[in-house]
């Protein structure tokens, strides 16, 4: 076995009223991927932030390559060889790839007037990227790169700082299937360089593919460290939640009614091509495809957020004109965006105000609205969806990810929508809440709503959808019924754009 790189012993961290970490042990060996698992609030981020110098620990000991260290700030952590790649990247959008990699450490030329030696910098950057087997032009500004490439630049930057421990926080959250493969290849490369990787992810199915060991945190405690290859997924989930969740099986016998939404020959110049489909009452239709295949664009086009150029949309058989979200809401269409915080909630306003937002016009009396009406309308859905909030007046920014998502759903239930367009509804929320959201979506359908659900989680799509549409480069390239869909078939279709009859 290789050498011990990092050892954290008895780490404790207390916030006012919360014991975030309780005597946690954690270690990383050279050339190892150590996965850190746990529901939201289990203490993963706190542990990572202590390691990267963002937080100070209350007690405990950190040893790096045998030397005890006190990490005082993020810069110090970098000097010690600890690099963190956060979900939100820390790149400067308008600087080039090579400038970003060497930001603050640019090679200098000239004796009297010191200036950046761009040639050397470019050459270094190129070599680093080549070493990783990544093909990115070092001269283009970072904002023009896709998410996956930006992540590669971050990793390269970490390597260029001679990182010994590389922390990756949900690195696959925004990546498509083939980008994930590419990332895993790079991680394996890092392992060869004897770098220790701490890997945080909500996607359980990818862990056996990349992880060596898994440590599960729950309520700030280390529940146990197990081998990634030999541990079954259900026992991991059990460790995470502390209780056994029965695998939810959704009845496939459903009463599917008449047509609710029909999209005919919909096109938009920048990437939607001749799209046709229908959603019926009581039906959950999945929309699979790689990131960038046009799934979100399609949902936003139907909703009027970015109107389409050509095509027709029918609601309950009636041709409707949707030029703005206002028109869509009037047709009882709901869109639940992927980024809840950015597009789904007004974080500085209360739970009740958020829930009633799209319904204000309906529940008001000629534009006037009393506090009681708002409270009553919101309360109904807080109870119905079991939204955990200390009060209806609580600002939504203080809720957990799962509860925030429920507020967004409550918004559209309150506005009595019939057609729900979900964009990655379970991304970034913890396992327990995921199951709840899925149940909710099924329940919506069973009460007569029509649901279009975009998801990158194929097992989720297969689990809860009646039909699955697959998008490829702006067109719908395949359709499967829920019964005979398999992850392989869908993935093949999404990757190749082949029409495979399910």
């Amino acid at each position: 076995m290789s050498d011990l790189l990092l050892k954290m012993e008895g780490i404790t961290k207390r916030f006012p009223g919360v014991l975030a970490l309780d005597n946690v042990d954690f270690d990383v060996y050279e050339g190892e991927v150590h996965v850190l698992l746990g529901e939201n609030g289990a203490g993963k981020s706190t542990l990572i932030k202590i390691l990267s110098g963002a937080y100070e620990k209350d007690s405990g000991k950190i040893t790096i390559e045998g030397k005890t260290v006190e990490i005082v700030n993020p810069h110090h952590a970098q000097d010690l060889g600890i690099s963190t790649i956060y979900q939100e990247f820390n790149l400067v959008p308008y600087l080039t790839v090579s400038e970003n990699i060497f930001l603050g450490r640019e090679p200098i030329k000239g004796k009297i007037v010191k200036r950046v030696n761009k040639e050397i910098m470019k050459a270094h950057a190129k070599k680093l990227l080549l070493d990783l087997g990544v093909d990115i032009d070092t001269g283009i500004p970072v904002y023009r790169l896709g998410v996956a490439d930006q992540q590669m630049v971050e990793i390269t930057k970490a390597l260029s700082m001679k990182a010994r421990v590389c922390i990756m926080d949900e690195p696959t959250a925004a990546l498509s299937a083939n980008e994930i493969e590419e990332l895993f290849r790079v991680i394996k490369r890092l392992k060869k360089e004897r770098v220790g990787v701490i890997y945080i992810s909500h996607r359980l199915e990818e862990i056996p593919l990349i992880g060596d060991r898994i440590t599960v945190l729950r309520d700030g405690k280390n529940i146990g460290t197990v081998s990634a290859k030999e541990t079954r997924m259900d026992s991991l989930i059990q460790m995470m939640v502390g209780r056994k969740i029965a695998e939810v099986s959704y009845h496939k016998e459903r009463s599917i009614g008449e047509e609710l939404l029909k999209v005919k020959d919909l096109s938009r110049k920048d990437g939607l091509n001749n799209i046709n489909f229908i959603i019926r009452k009581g039906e959950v239709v999945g929309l699979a495809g790689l990131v960038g295949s046009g799934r979100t664009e399609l949902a936003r086009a139907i909703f009027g957020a970015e109107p389409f150029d050509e095509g027709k949309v029918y609601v309950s058989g009636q041709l409707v004109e949707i030029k703005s979200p206002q028109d869509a809401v009037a047709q009882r269409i709901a869109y639940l965006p992927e980024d809840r915080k950015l597009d789904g909630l007004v974080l500085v306003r209360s739970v009740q105000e958020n829930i009633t937002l799209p319904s204000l016009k309906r529940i008001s009396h000629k534009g006037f609205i009393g506090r009681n009406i708002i409270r009553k309308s919101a309360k109904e859905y807080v109870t119905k969806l079991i939204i955990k909030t200390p009060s209806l007046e609580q600002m939504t920014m203080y809720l957990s990810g799962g509860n925030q998502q429920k507020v967004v759903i409550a918004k559209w239930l309150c506005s009595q929508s019939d057609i729900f367009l979900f964009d990655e509804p379970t991304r970034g929320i913890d396992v327990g809440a995921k199951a709840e959201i899925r149940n909710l979506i099924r329940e919506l359908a069973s009460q007569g709503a029509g649901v279009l659900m975009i998801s990158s989680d194929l097992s989720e799509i297969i689990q809860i959808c009646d039909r699955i549409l697959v998008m490829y480069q702006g067109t719908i390239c395949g359709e499967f019924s829920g019964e005979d869909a398999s992850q392989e078939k869908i993935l093949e279709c999404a990757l190749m754009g082949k029409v495979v009859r399910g």
Partner: protein
Amino acid sequence: MKKGANKDTELLELSKSIVTNRILINKIKQGLQKYGIIIIFFFVFLIISISTPHFLTKRNIINILRQVSMVGIIGCGMTFVILLAEIDLSVGSMASLVGVIAAFLQVVKGANTFIAITFAIIVTFTFGIVMGLIITKVKVHSFVVTLGVLSIAKAVALIISKGHPISGLERPFRFIGGGMAGPIPIPFILFIMIAILSYLILTFTIFGKYIFAIGGNIETSRLSGIPVDRTKILVFGISGLMAGISGIILAARINSGQSIAGEGLLFEAITAVVIGGTSLFGGVGSIGGTVIGVFLLGIIRNGLNLIGVSPFWQKVFNGALILLVVVLDRMRRRIRVY
């Protein structure tokens, strides 16, 4: 088995205590944010009352009430604008313009008071609507648009007045600025009526709710089917309207239309709104806060005058005050977001 059950109840208790703790901390925080300004107000009030005997005289108080009314009315409009996370820099020169137009119509063209005032206010309301249209439809930042209108309104006022005050208003006009209803000055009554109306609009109409939502997150609001553009345009119209009303009072008080009369109003209105707890980042704030902010600013200025601080130094003081408040707002936001 039994041990497990014990642990569960323990955990439950722990999570309960955490939640109640958090609620308590939030309540204290929110309480301080809400009522901190009132405490400061009484503190300042007390200090000024002790340090000068002229402060609590009837004449001085009436003077203060008149003074705060003009800032206050503009401040109500500005609260709407800042709640939207926008800014309206044109209010000061609009107030001057209104006075000049009304005085010109009355003194030069011989129009009666009602017509002169109505026409002048319609002009600023229209200016506001046009600014709103440019901001929403052409998508130019309100800072730039209202800065442009600031300059235009000022220039139009100069053109009409040829740079001289237009004096000699009729009595009913002057009454708006100098009149009393019993012991209370007319401008103050107007201010309070407008403040109450603004409060009711923000609290009990969907238009008000839209303002908070749009200021808090414009994209979420758009995706929730809210008429974002219409709301914004109307708010700028309201801001113009308030600047107009304030400008009429100003002209009535100084018995003339002057092209530079309203210059100080912009700065004071923004300061009052921000001191009153309305966030420059939008979505959070209240009319009540603005009213207290206006009073606080009013008594500070009055107090400094009475104590004999030079007006030059007063400007330094006012500037420092707004910087302090903006820094506090920024810090408050940082704590909230992270």
